[in-house]
């Protein structure tokens, strides 16, 4: 095994970001899982991702409690970490102060050194050298409506980043309580992509911006198709965000955070919705699956807990799928349970409990 590689090829690696550190769970067969960690112990890890475009670099959005937030990176699966030479920060004296880093997103396959990060206050940062140095995207900061963006309860967070796979000038971001935005000129200018998405909490139900998008994910093959889980429903666009169609269907609630899809069967999408208490609807913790791009949703419950004290929630980055077929699906709760399915969600098993509140789960197949 090459120096620095800890796990053999074919291993599924789950990077689990929690309120008190980063955990890795690994498996060769998706039946038995081995935990490692905590790494960056005690720190609030909002998001972590293993970038395998050039080696295996593990990025972590480390929002320590006291001394600032950083995207740290490791080339040995968490044993040692490096800090950026030029970190994510707003211009000094500019009036903005970094609160949290919400997401780290590797860029296009053709640009293996490019990595993006989203923050609160909402901003997009880019690294062109694998995380050593970071730059603020001025175009988004200079948007003419920027001064009117107001935070939601979770903050004014840029929580999702989607890059067009082949067009380097196009990408999308999702910002809570602002909406989806797209650039077609490499980030110099940005336009809103909120037509058709509701903001029931505002006087105008379909405003130009102000929608609270929780998660935005891309179709793996058709770059004009994206899905979003929103404070007010689930939506799909088939025209790169120019307009959206609601696909709540028979889901029991408008409100939910995470979304994921099966990369081999992209009409299959997953979500978890919640009731007014911000936990499972009724007594059964449920993952919802649609195999027809949102027309109808199935309740997936086999192996998931049920009972009068079962009150679980999954945060916006707390669910993901792996790249195998049949796909594995993974859901981590804000009370520290990690559930896994190796058969597209047909059945589930709890593979970790008593973790700190889970902020994010990402899956990589080595």
């Amino acid at each position, binding site marked *: 095994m090459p120096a620095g590689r800890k796990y053999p090829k074919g291993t599924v690696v789950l990077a689990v970001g929690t309120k008190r550190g980063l955990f890795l769970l690994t498996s060769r067969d998706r039946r038995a899982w081995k935990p490692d960690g905590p790494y960056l112990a005690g720190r609030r890890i*909002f998001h972590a991702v293993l970038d395998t475009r050039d080696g295996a670099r593990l990025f972590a959005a480390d929002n320590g409690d006291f*001394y600032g937030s950083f995207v740290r990176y490791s080339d040995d699966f968490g044993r040692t970490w490096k800090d950026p030479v030029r970190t994510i920060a707003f211009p000094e*004296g500019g*009036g903005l102060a970094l609160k949290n880093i919400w997401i780290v997103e590797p860029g296009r396959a053709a640009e293996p050194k490019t990595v993006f990060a989203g923050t609160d206050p909402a901003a997009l940062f880019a690294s062109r050298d694998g995380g050593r140095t970071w730059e603020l995207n001025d175009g988004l900061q200079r948007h003419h409506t920027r001064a009117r963006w107001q935070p939601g309860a979770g903050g004014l967070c840029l929580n999702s980043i989607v890059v067009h796979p082949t067009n380097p000038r196009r990408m999308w971001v999702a910002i809570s309580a602002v909406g989806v935005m797209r650039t077609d000129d490499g980030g110099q200018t940005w336009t809103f992509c909120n037509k058709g998405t509701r903001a029931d909490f505002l006087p105008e139900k379909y405003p130009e911006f102000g929608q609270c998008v929780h998660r935005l994910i891309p179709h793996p093959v058709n770059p004009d198709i994206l899905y979003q889980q929103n404070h007010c429903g689930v939506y799909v666009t088939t025209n790169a965000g120019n307009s959206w169609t609601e696909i709540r269907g028979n889901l029991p609630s408008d409100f939910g955070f995470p979304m994921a899809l099966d990369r081999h069967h992209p009409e299959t999408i997953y979500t978890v919705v919640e009731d007014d208490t911000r936990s499972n609807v009724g007594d059964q913790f449920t993952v919802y699956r649609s195999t027809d791009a949102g027309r109808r949703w199935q309740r997936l419950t086999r192996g998931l807990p049920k009972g009068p004290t079962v009150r679980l929630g999954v*945060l916006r980055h707390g669910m993901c799928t792996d790249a195998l077929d049949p796909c594995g699906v993974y859901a981590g709760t804000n009370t520290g349970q990690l559930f896994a399915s190796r058969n597209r969600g047909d059945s589930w098993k709890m593979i970790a409990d008593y973790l700190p509140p889970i902020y994010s789960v990402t899956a990589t197949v080595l």
Partner: protein
Amino acid sequence: MGVTIRLPGPLRERAGRRAAVHVEAATVRQALDALEHRFPGMRFALCEETGRLRPYVNVFLETENIRDLQGLETPVPDGATLHVLHSVAGGAGAGA
């Protein structure tokens, strides 16, 4: 004689594992500037981009919190010690 800055555990790695650093400074701000000069990146650990101390970072001039004095403009006598400490912040914290 200069000023001694005592660092908390989480920041010592940034200062080459030093628990204390000696600098020449007449104010707290100058002391932090000197600290940044010797250990680039240290200021960001202590202060936001706005220039304010991070909310849960406290600097004591001997036994007095500079927030109760003149903040970062607090004069620092020659031979004094600045203690950098983080707040007792309890168990609650921001969610994601």
